[in-house]
């Protein structure tokens, strides 16, 4: 039998107790640390995964909408709920264990709720894990219009280049063609403000493969080294956004082939055909008030000899001359008017004077009779023929357009200014935006031109069409003037074919400034040509 004779058993116990105490403290510390770390790591992982799932939903929704717009299909026709007070579309999908579900809601003016070609949607995407929502992203996305560009070219002639030392483009610039930049000798060694203040994109590459895809000419060299690595300070010299602001190989932005949607907007109906007889027309339908309600804008059949935009008593006017006879359109927004007894209104002579309050549109026709409709029209003035002279002061959002499919033109014959902006100042709002849409938009020969008293064009100009050679031009070759003219555009210039505007160094308009009006991107002129692309206007993320 073994008998322990040691008398030191107590100290072993003591030791064990001490070590156990120490281990207990260490374990406690670890126990405290581990779950906190685990929770933190898991929360981080959850947060990331939830974001990616909700973001996947937003991307899917944008792709759904843009696919329809690219194919010129109305997205609302594919909506889950197309009719009723709350038409919307529902989609869902999964990303691993995560699921996303989203709803697309058009705003009040977007089809099917409204008729605006500037479509605005609110997308709400929620990411869930096992049906428990974790993250919600709410996005407002609006369709982009060509008015977002400070300058746009569909095709450029190979011998036309941007001189980076003389050009100054304040907003986004895009070319569906190769971007050709002329860099004069020593340009990169000089100080100065950059030429391009907004993003510059082009759809085609220039060789060689290395570099940035831009075709550089001139003695100033290239902004990248022999191995193709960018020299960042050189890009900063050219572009205020540096290398990141230049992107070649961008998606081609197709110009529209025709201006039918503008014709439909002006007539206000897709189903009924506008009159074939030359004249100025307001389409209307029976409404709830005393007068028929305006359906669209102003539809003009035939060529226009002259069109003058104006303001009378704070109300917007458009004087249209056709065949030597004048029609006067007045949109009463600031105050009304009255017509005396005996005046022929809407086909009948007035038995007594008629008060017309604000919120009505009155067309005094060439024959002296009146047409009165309720509403202020949608701002579109469309002519099937050429507008041979356009000038004046614009009030209200307006687009003046002609048939671009049949090569019709708009000839500017004087200043085009805005009622909300003093001459020479930059526009600060979007109330009086003006867009011109023609196959060619030209500065007419008869405009007096001078350097000190420049021609002001407060508008964004769309000139050309897909696969056409239309564009912007200056009819300025006339030696008798003997001086060089200057024009200033406060807006943007979108051209089908980039070609010489005039004859530099002669007596035409060879000096110009194109000053970008950023309000046009957010609030383009009504029914201005659109791109099949949605642009994020707000982005909000919320943890659920």
């Amino acid at each position, binding site marked *: 039998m073994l008998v322990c004779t040691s008398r030191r058993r107590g*100290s072993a116990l*003591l*030791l064990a107790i*001490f070590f156990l*105490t*120490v281990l207990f*403290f*260490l374990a*406690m*510390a670890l126990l*405290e*640390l581990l779950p*906190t*770390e685990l929770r*933190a790591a898991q929360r*981080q992982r959850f*947060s990331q995964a939830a974001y990616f799932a909700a*973001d996947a939903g*937003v*991307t899917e929704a*944008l792709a759904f909408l843009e696919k329809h717009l690219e194919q010129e299909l109305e997205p609302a026709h594919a909506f889950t709920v197309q009719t009723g007070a709350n038409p919307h579309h529902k989609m869902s999908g999964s990303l691993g264990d995560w699921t996303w579900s989203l709803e697309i809601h058009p*705003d009040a*003016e977007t089809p099917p709720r409204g008729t605006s070609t*500037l479509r*605005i949607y*609110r997308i709400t995407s929620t990411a869930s894990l096992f049906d428990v929502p974790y993250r919600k992203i709410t*996005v*407002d*996305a*609006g369709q982009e219009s060509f008015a*977002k560009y*400070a300058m746009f070219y569909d095709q450029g002639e190979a011998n036309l280049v941007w001189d980076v030392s003389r050009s100054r483009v*304040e*907003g*986004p610039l895009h070319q569906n063609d190769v971007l050709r930049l002329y860099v004069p000798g020593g340009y990169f060694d000089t100080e100065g403000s950059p030429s391009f*203040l*907004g*993003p510059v994109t082009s759809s085609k590459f220039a060789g060689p493969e290395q570099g940035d895809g831009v075709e550089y000419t001139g003695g100033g060299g290239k902004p990248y080294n022999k191995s193709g690595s960018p020299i960042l300070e050189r890009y900063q010299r050219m572009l205020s*956004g*540096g290398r*990141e602001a230049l992107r070649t190989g961008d998606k081609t932005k197709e110009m529209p082939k025709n201006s039918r949607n503008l014709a439909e907007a002006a007539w206000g109906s897709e189903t009924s055909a506008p009159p074939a007889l030359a004249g100025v027309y307001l389409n209307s339908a029976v409404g709830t008030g005393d007068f028929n309600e305006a359906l669209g804008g102003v539809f003009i059949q035939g060529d226009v000899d002259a069109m003058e935009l104006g303001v009378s008593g704070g109300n917007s006017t458009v004087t249209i001359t056709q065949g030597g006879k004048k029609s006067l359109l007045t949109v009463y927004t600031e105050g009304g008017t009255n017509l005396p007894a005996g005046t022929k209104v809407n086909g009948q002579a007035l038995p007594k004077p008629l008060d017309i309050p604000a919120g009505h549109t009155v067309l005094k026709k060439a024959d002296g009779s009146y047409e009165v409709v309720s509403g202020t029209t949608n701002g579109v003035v469309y002519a099937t023929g050429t507008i041979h002279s356009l000038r004046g002061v614009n009030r209200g959002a307006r687009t003046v357009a002609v048939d671009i499919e049949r090569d019709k033109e708009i000839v500017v014959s004087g200043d085009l200014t805005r009622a909300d902006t003093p001459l020479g100042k930059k526009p600060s709002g*979007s109330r009086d935006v003006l867009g011109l849409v023609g196959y060619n938009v030209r500065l007419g020969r008869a405009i007096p031109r001078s350097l000190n008293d420049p021609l002001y064009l407060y508008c964004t100009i769309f000139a050309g069409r897909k696969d056409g050679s239309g564009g912007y031009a200056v009819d300025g070759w006339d030696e008798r003037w003997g001086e060089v003219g200057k024009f200033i555009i406060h807006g943007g210039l979108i051209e089908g074919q980039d070609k010489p505007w005039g004859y530099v160094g002669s007596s035409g308009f060879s000096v110009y400034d194109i000053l*970008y009006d*950023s*309000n046009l*991107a*957010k*609030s383009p002129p009504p029914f201005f040509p659109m791109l099949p692309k949605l*642009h*994020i*206007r*707000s*982005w*909000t*993320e*919320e*943890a659920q």
Partner: protein
Amino acid sequence: MRPHRPFGMTLLETMISVALLGLLGVILMQIYDVSRTAYASGTGQIALQQKARVLMERISPLLVRALPPDQSLPAILSPAAGDAADTIVFSVPAPDFNPRHPIYSQARIRREDDRSVVLDANTPLVTEDDRVLGRDIERLRFAVVARNVVRVTVDVYGTARGASNQDKVQRYTLDGLVQIPYYSKN
């Protein structure tokens, strides 16, 4: 029958055992002190990490709302690209935002002298008083890495009761990149 050995220890045995026990006690106290320090330091570090993470989680959703006031300007108005500062100014949708006629306004997150981080009042994101996003923040840096990426660096300091009851300063730096979705979607 063998005679019993007398109970008890000799003085020498007692002294040795007391000395040994004393030595053991000192060692164990040291170990205890180290483990207590480790515990305090660990929990202190966790508290700092929490503080930094909470601040980052509050700043990120604010920054992802940034949108440029127009397409020729950046969404982050200050600091300039490539620069870093303890204040960030960015453009966000204005109050009562209407996507059809969008107007953008400015928001600002800054670190105050009292070591708090606040979102400025009277911006679209907070309309009444300044909103405090975090306190006891020793250093906050916003660096614009690219026009669509902001690096946010949070430095927090704290004290933990260390060995011999000495306060030990602890530091934790959290570095995070916030990507602004506007640029990746447009």
